[in-house]
């Protein structure tokens, strides 16, 4: 397994594409390792976000998973980060499905679905690194341009003073 600590989002996407294209037998043969790798990929994706924002990624766990602790860390003060809350939880769920029963007939499919969930996390974080407001309106109920509105009270917020 490649060292996820040195990976960027593109490397992660390439690895996930490999997982999605791999034959069933390849996935099944390494199922528990690949299930854990999916979780590590998810952690690496959130670490990239946190590091880009000058935060030190936590080593703590929430509900037994570091991925969920990293998500909680990212969401602190940035409610739009909750747009990937369930994506992280689904990643944990798919990892558990495979890890707890690696010989299940659906193992290859479960790994691929886990890889698709991880890909969504990659796309979301990649998008947020480009446009920080991604997920802002939808999930946080916080205005995108609140700062501008505060900075220009005469023009934008004037209605309340005139009345």
């Amino acid at each position, binding site marked *: 397994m490649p060292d996820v600590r040195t990976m960027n989002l593109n490397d992660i996407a390439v690895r996930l594409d490999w997982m999605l294209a791999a034959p069933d037998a390849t996935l099944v043969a390494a199922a528990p390792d690949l299930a854990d790798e999916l979780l590590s990929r998810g952690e690496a994706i959130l670490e990239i976000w946190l590091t880009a924002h000058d935060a030190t990624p936590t080593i703590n766990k929430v509900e037994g998973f570091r991925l969920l602790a990293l998500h909680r860390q990212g969401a602190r003060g940035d409610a739009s980060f909750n*747009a990937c809350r369930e*994506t992280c*939880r689904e990643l944990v769920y798919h990892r558990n499905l495979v890890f707890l029963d690696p010989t299940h007939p659906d193992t290859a499919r479960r790994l691929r*679905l886990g890889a698709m*969930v991880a890909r969504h996390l990659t796309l979301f974080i990649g998008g947020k690194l*480009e446009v920080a*407001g991604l997920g802002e309106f*939808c999930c946080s*109920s916080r205005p995108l341009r*609140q700062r501008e509105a505060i900075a220009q009270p005469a023009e934008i917020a004037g209605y309340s003073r005139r009345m």
Partner: protein
Amino acid sequence: MSGKYKQVAYYPGCALEGTGHSYNRSTKALGKALGLDIVELKNWNCCGAMEVKNVDPKLQTYLSSRNLSIAENMGFDTVMVPCNGCYHNLKKAEYDLANDSASREVTDRLSRKAGHKTYEAGKVETIHALDWIKEAIGEDGLRARVKNSLKGFKIANYYGCMYTRPRHIFPEKDKGAGSESTSKPHFMDDLLAAAGAENVEYPLKTACCGGAHTLSDSDTSTKLVLNLLTTAEACGADVIATECPTCHSGLEMHQMRAEKVFGRKTTVKILYFTQLLGMALGLSARKVGVHENFSDCLDLLRARGLG
């Protein structure tokens, strides 16, 4: 059938008069077929959507509260909203008016200036179209009325992000058995299963579609939607059911854009849950506005004995 929500005020919102017209048509047709009465708010206004909220959230709270005030004046204690964005904004206004004195002050000032009674939190309950059918008819009631079973349809239910987030504005959710879940919503799954459909396990049912950035950063939105579509197909779905006009048009538009820009074709169809339930009750595809969708579903519907 509890009888609750048998007659409710109806707030369609702006999108349902534009790109979401088929959602408006199918919601009304479904209500009529089920014997439920919906009365459209008189002289309703925009909920504040993202445009107003981005500039001034308290003005958005006022705009949403005016719709709640209209519902109260019309004698209703419940307003039903099919659009996730409107639903979210009305619920947020309710929360802000109950918990934020500054929001109450601005709303009161603007209401007096506009010449109508200030809406007070707690007078009108905002429900989603899913709550409406689930509570007023329920799965058993729906099952008993099905004329054209959705048997054979494999459906991925996509709820989008605004139906469940942020959690604090939806105090009625996550209350155990019978209530909706914010982490794994299931009301749409329940209703479509009652109509005979097979719901596939879809891990991205509340994942971000990049909807708010669909114009400013189209490539990000297209990639997110493409992943939603390919994952639905990988889950075995032939249809994605939606319950929000923004999600719906985003999925349809970016499905086409993904093919045009990235050369990635997906074949999964996109239909509103109200269209699927309407057809299950015997309404024609035209009656529920399938011809107004961008996603061409008619071949699939005809092959399954609908349409």
